[in-house]
């Protein structure tokens, strides 16, 4: 079934660790996005990509980095996690027509 998948669903990790949040979509969408969302709060765009080898920073400054080597895959990496990175991270993709499809999110806790 065509969808967008995020792993892990939950992650608790110690300060200073390197982490990668995975996002993959099987819908053939060119555009993909990462949002940061504290529970019940605003969505802040942190990264987006319009296609392979295209990545841009979003409205909210983030210490994370992203890559887009394959159309379907858009991982987000934090080289050294800190408690201030504790949040929910949502991945989304969109095609030519309209609207976004969101993943289930990764809830990250840095202790």
């Amino acid at each position, binding site marked *: 079934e065509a969808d967008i998948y995020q792993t892990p669903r939950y992650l608790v990790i110690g300060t200073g660790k390197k982490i990668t949040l995975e996002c993959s979509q099987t819908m053939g969408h060119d555009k993909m996005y990462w949002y940061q969302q504290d529970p*019940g709060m*605003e*969505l802040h765009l942190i990264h*987006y990509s*319009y296609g392979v080898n295209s990545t841009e920073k979003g409205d909210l400054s983030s210490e994370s980095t992203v890559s887009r080597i394959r159309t379907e895959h858009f991982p987000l990496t934090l080289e050294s996690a800190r408690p201030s990175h504790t949040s929910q991270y949502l991945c989304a993709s969109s095609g030519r027509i*309209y609207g*976004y499809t969101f993943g289930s999110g990764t809830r990250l806790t840095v202790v």
Partner: protein
Amino acid sequence: AQRVTQPEKLLSVFKGAPVELKCNYSYSGSPELFWYVQYSRQRLQLLLRHISRESIKGFTADLNKGETSFHLKKPFAQEEDSAMYYCALKGGGNAGNMLTFGGGTRLMVKP
């Protein structure tokens, strides 16, 4: 620059009461507007879009270009409508189909 404002962080109504979630936007071109909903423990999903002029789960939203508004309405709220609601604007030009989200409104429907 495009901007979406949802003036209410929290809206609490009783079951069976009418509900209106407010959304105002600023955009110089011809906007496309959407409402997204996030139920507890579920992913963010598209509720409706203005161009289709549809009613989903009893909700409707009318684009008022004069007032630059896209309020979401339902005549009789149900408990299962309790969720976070986000208004979103799709801009054109260089923004492509990038969505700008409002801050969200939490709707609580009390029994």
